């Protein structure tokens, strides 16, 4: 099976063709499967946390995806219409260098010099996309803030050793209500062949609130079709705290703080009864990442209110509020606990 591929390794994003290579730029490993005419058969590569990557990807899962790709290749071009949705769209920049933040990079790596610094890393593309919106004074679109939602954003988890088999349906979720069940094999989603978790995330990435998703599944050897309607705000449930690109969002939104929710036991011990209790796990000390530090925030402080909100239970929800409801330059009041002593500081968003 593996002998049937031509393998290409790309090691840099300098001059990367963004009219073709659209994927989750927070990954450190991603694969594309294509026909020589540039038609994309499938994407591979998923990450949902900073824990071991084996909870999201595996060599067995990659092999299953490759089997699926070979079938798509055999069926091509008769299946061309079913692949249409997998092709790049929303093309706004042809290369990373077309972003102002990245235009100074040379096309080739400087192997004789500081080669790592001469490389445009994948995550810098998303950083540049967001920065372009932010510096224009505009909103950062939800699709850029919460990109490539993981399957759990709709209430399912996929088996990383399969191409797209459900290993868990979260009780009470929209997926549960739609009738999806454990062990269902997702064959197509909105007519697109699903060869990997990344393929499913591609569909979710481009989906809108209220959109219907049609799952073509195999259950107990029989084909079936189920429909799920995405509720309002479904995308905002994504956890973006693990993403490398969230580092720059923290500069803009939290003054450089990294925030981690307290456990229920820790909240009880501190006598916190509201929904918000986020420990400052790290606070930037230098440059634009030191806004919170300069305002007096210290590592170990517990954030209990942000801009008057006490219901922002996760770092992702804090970032969303700061980016979507506020603008650069706005002053935000933080209420914190240092031990049992309350403190209040003000930071300005960037």
């Amino acid at each position, binding site marked *: 099976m*593996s*002998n*049937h*591929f*031509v*393998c*290409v*390794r*790309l*090691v*840099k*994003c300098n001059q990367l*063709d963004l009219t073709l*290579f659209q*994927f989750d730029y927070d*990954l*450190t*490993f*991603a*694969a*594309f*499967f*294509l*026909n*020589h005419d*540039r038609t994309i*058969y499938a994407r591979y590569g998923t990450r949902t946390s900073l824990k071991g990557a084996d909870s999201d990807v595996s*060599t067995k899962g990659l092999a299953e995806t*490759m089997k699926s*790709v*070979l079938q798509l*290749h055999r069926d091509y071009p008769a299946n061309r219409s079913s692949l249409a949705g997998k092709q790049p769209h929303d093309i706004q920049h042809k290369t990373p260098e077309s972003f102002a933040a990245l235009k100074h990079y040379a096309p080739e*790596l400087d*192997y004789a010099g*500081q*080669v*790592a610094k001469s*490389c445009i*890393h*994948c995550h810098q593309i998303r950083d540049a996309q967001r920065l372009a919106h932010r510096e224009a004074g505009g909103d950062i679109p939800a699709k850029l803030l919460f990109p490539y939602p993981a399957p759990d954003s709709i209430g399912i988890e996929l088996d990383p050793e399969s191409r797209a088999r459900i290993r868990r349906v979260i009780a009470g979720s929209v997926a549960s209500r739609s009738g999806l069940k454990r062990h269902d094999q997702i064959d197509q989603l909105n007519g697109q062949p699903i060869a990997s978790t990344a393929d499913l995330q591609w569909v979710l990435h481009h989906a809108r609130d209220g959109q219907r998703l049609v799952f073509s599944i195999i259950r107990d050897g029989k084909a079936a079709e189920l429909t799920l309607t995405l509720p309002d705000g479904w995308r905002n449930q994504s956890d973006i705290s693990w993403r490398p690109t969230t580092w720059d969002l923290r500069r803009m939104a939290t003054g450089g703080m990294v925030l981690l929710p307290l456990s229920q036991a820790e909240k009880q011990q501190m006598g916190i009864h509201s929904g918000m209790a986020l420990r400052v796990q790290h606070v930037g000390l230098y440059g634009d990442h030191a806004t919170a530090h300069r305002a007096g925030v210290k590592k170990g402080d517990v954030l209990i209110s942000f801009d008057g909100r006490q219901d922002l239970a996760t770092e992702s929800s804090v970032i969303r509020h700061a980016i979507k409801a506020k603008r650069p330059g706005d002053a935000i009041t933080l209420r914190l606990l240092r031990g049992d002593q309350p403190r209040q500081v003000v930071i300005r968003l960037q």
Partner: protein
Amino acid sequence: MHSRRFSRCAVAWAIIVAVAPFAFSQQTRDDMVRSDRQALLNDESWYYDDLEAGWQAAQVARKPLMVVLRCIP
């Protein structure tokens, strides 16, 4: 020549991934990038940073391309 490409490259990658934390522990990130290039540039299992050659090979061989984007962390 390409018939054994993937299995050979998979072995090469597995070795690199397994030993990298130890072998490269004294290396800078720049050293690691150069080592990665040295290890794979002449490996016939892969077209290293040469997408154009990959397109042409896929057309001639009538095979699909697998394009891997992998950062040296």
